[in-house]
């Protein structure tokens, strides 16, 4: 009885403070994290690394998909567990804060850990990954994100340059009409398929363009990390007076379709999201060495010319394995190659918090070194 009456008298915030700072919660968080990591790893066999990562680690809750299409939350996702971890780390150290040099090492270590977990969370929320494919002798000034698609309407009537309007896939999925001041038409999304198969035949929804002869069939998302979805959308273009027909756009269609509005041709295409840069990279030479008498790759490297009119940079850069180029907040890695070693594919990463793990590593190392040296000193004092 007495314990019960006491617990009532403790104010809520105090109990919450004790709860969030408790080492029991630390144990719970560690176990939750382990369960999450275990299942997030096993699911990769079926979902592929990318989808499993999204479902388990870049999420607040993990849902179980019901037969009827409903979703049941079954487990906290990476963001929730990580957030709880951060709170626990912070509160437990503030709650036990006593200034002693003896504890400074552990404080630094846990500070580094906090930064590491926070940095990873922010990376998952903010980082952008895309790929830049350059053929030998050619230049590129944009990279493509094969995990996301966009609908582009390209206005080609200016002779100097094309004007590209991009509509993110999210808007197409929502299905509401899309209008923009510079568009001569309204886009009415009718259907969106994250992954699909295009088959020729009658019965197409689209009435215009190549899509009028194609059927779109929904298909499960790809799970292999080196494949990409064939996303498709069916849209209607409606002008102020009349409809310009129903069109099928798809990443499975390689060339853009042309729609003529009042004598002006516009190009229409669904394609991987492009990130354009104010500088260009020109591939001078790609090299791919193998060990003699084997197919084991020894080294890949791309010799590039970086030209940036804004900063005045005009220089050679060499990207090879374990040696990326960091430039203007972007990092370029040698990722892949193709076309008989004539095409180099660079991974382009934009991660504003890339430095967090490096800082964390320094903090943790210093903290552990501090702790260790102090222990050693104490041990020697006692021995003496």
């Amino acid at each position, binding site marked *: 009885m007495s314990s019960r009456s006491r617990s009532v008298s403790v104010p809520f915030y105090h109990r919450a403070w004790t709860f969030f700072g408790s080492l029991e919660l630390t*144990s719970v968080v560690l176990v939750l994290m382990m369960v999450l990591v275990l299942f997030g*790893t096993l699911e*990769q066999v079926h979902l592929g690394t990318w989808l499993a990562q999204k479902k388990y680690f870049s999420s607040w809750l993990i849902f179980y998909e019901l037969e009827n299409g409903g979703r049941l939350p079954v487990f906290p996702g990476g963001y929730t567990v990580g957030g709880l971890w951060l709170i626990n780390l912070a509160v437990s150290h503030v709650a036990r804060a006593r200034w002693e040099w003896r504890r400074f090492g552990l404080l630094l270590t846990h500070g580094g850990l906090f930064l590491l977990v926070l940095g990873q969370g922010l990376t998952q929320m903010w*980082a952008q990954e895309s790929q830049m494919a350059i053929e030998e002798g050619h230049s590129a000034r944009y990279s493509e994100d094969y995990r996301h698609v966009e609908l582009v309407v390209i206005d080609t009537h200016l002779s100097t340059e094309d004007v590209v309007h991009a509509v993110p896939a999210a808007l197409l999925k929502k299905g509401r009409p899309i209008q923009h001041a510079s568009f001569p038409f309204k886009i009415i999304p009718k259907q969106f398929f994250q992954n699909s198969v295009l088959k020729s035949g009658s019965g197409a929804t689209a009435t215009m363009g190549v899509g009028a002869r194609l059927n779109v069939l929904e298909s499960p998302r790809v799970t292999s990390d080196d494949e990409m979805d064939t996303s498709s959308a069916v849209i209607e273009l409606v002008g102020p007076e009349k409809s310009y027909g129903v069109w099928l756009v798809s990443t499975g269609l390689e060339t853009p379709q042309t729609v003529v509005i009042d004598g002006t041709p516009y190009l229409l295409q669904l394609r991987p999201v492009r990130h354009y840069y104010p500088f260009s990279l020109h591939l001078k030479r790609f090299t791919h060495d193998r060990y*003699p*008498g084997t197919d084991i790759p020894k080294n890949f490297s791309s010799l590039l010319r970086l030209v940036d009119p804004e900063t005045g940079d005009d220089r050679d850069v060499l990207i090879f394995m374990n040696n990326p180029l960091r430039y203007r907040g972007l990092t370029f890695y040698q990722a892949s190659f193709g076309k008989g070693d004539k095409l180099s594919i660079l991974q382009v990463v934009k991660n504003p918090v890339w430095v967090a*793990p*490096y800082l964390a590593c320094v903090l*943790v190392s210093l903290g552990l070194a501090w702790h260790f040296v102090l222990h050693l000193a104490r041990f020697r004092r006692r021995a003496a």
Partner: protein
Amino acid sequence: MRPRPSTLAVWGVGLVLAYGLMSARTAPSPDRLWGDLPVLSGGRVKPLDSVARHSLLVLSGKQSVRMNGRPVGATAWLKEMVFQPDVADTYPVFEIDDPDVLGSIGMASGRQRRYRFLDLQPHLSELQTQSERAGAVRPQLRSRFQKALLRLWEQVLLYWRIQNTLRLTGPDSELPGVTGSVHEIEAYQTALNERGESTAARPVADMSSVLSAFQARYQTLADRAEFRVLPAGAPDRWASLGQGLLDGSDGSPLHPAIGFYARMGDACRSGDTAAFRQALFDYRDWLGEHVPGASAQGRREGLFNRYQAFYKSLVLYVIVCGLVFLSFLRWPAELRRTAYGILVLAFIVHTGGLVARMILQGRPPVTNLYSSAIFVGWGSVLLGVVVERMFKNGWGSLGSAAIGFLTQIIALHLAAQGDTMEMMRAVLDSNFWLATHVVTVTAGYSATFLSGVLGVVFILRGVFSKGLEEEAAQNLTRMVYGIVCFSAFFSFIGTVLGGIWADQSWGRFWGWDPKENGALMIVLWNALILHMGWDKQVGRRGLMNLAVFGNIITALSWFGVNMLGIGLHSYGFMDKASLWLIVFCLSQAAIIGLGALPARFWGSPGTVS
């Protein structure tokens, strides 16, 4: 003063080991010299002895062949393979244990496990058809039969390429009118010299058709060769025998090694041991004079292969375990001391092997799954030696010798996949990261296993005997907690370093890749044990159970993720080990079950509280 029996025993074992090393160095027999000849295979210079052992391991799972009840060494087998393929075809070297594969070539699975090439020969076209069918299926989706069949087909191809390295097999082995390799090369040389010169007997057109017949033949030989035998200064300038003969077409002199190999081949085929020996000695002298580096590399690795340091340490670890067990029954102090002495000897032999590998490969100790097994054992034994020195109660010797033994067994099985010093793929080709990240992560495995095994020892001894005393229990607890601190440190640092390497090479610090997740699980688990122990959320027994569970987690992250066959890190994929991994995990779970028994079921109930 009379020396202790333990001191004598340890000195005795030490002398036996030293004698083994001496005898592996001296007395060069022709077979040994043949095995030391350097060739280029798998992208690196290695002795024929290594090629022979690795090929035989891949084919038959063993390093020697049994023929008519007597063992034939790998190098002798390779000599038959390249010089007398007809003889080699009668050796049972193909290990086929899949009943469906045997069935598909019309054989019943019986007592025989290894088959001769002669047994397979009638079924080659069927095997090829089946392998093409299986090859069309995506690797992850292949059935057991398809995997086994593809493996057999690869073995057949390897076998055939080895036989076609120095001379074509079958009806093409000899040109009409030419007997023996020396003669053939003379004829080729004559054809080269007389090119463009018409003589009364032979018009120009006839000569050039003779020459092109030679060249077609050597092109085929060059295409089929499994390894390159003609030495050069830089690895990428080594050539196969066929290529060396083709290179002579432009009028440049033939590589001298071609002549030596031709003499050896002819001598071998005619059974002239003296001539073989002479050709071998002449070639060895030539090598020493012209390519001393490759020649020395061949001799060094040959010695390493023959000494079998890891196998020797395996045997010693078994002896250590036996001695510690015996010490529970009789002469505790003396046997424990002997066990410790032999553990140190085993560690020295183990270290010698490890360092030898590093020198041969020019790499940090861990470069692949095989070497990680060697290193996990080594790290555990190192820790075990330190712990045993501090506590002197036999536990450290027993725990670390058990891990040393098990990891060497694992390494022996992994070695059956071929060369264990293969070249590093581009992304792994960084001695800095191999030396930092890989070594620290692997050291974390070592420490986690040692704490887990000590947990096992605590539980088994506590449950099944009355002999676990309070002092020993306290010591074991301190040992386990201390080692968990160690493993938490190493696995955390190693994992973070791995993240930084990944950030340098793939553009992300952390990608939730299976191998990364495996390492993270070990870190999380060790952190959990530390915090629960520190906060007294668990008692002594709980700590031991947690430590034993660490064995499961480490085993899964070490091998389990390779079995998933996904992700950027899955470069050491294997099938057979899955069963053993499951057996291991179940055994550890059973021990945890024992550890969770109420105190009244324990043999030493006092230690539980």
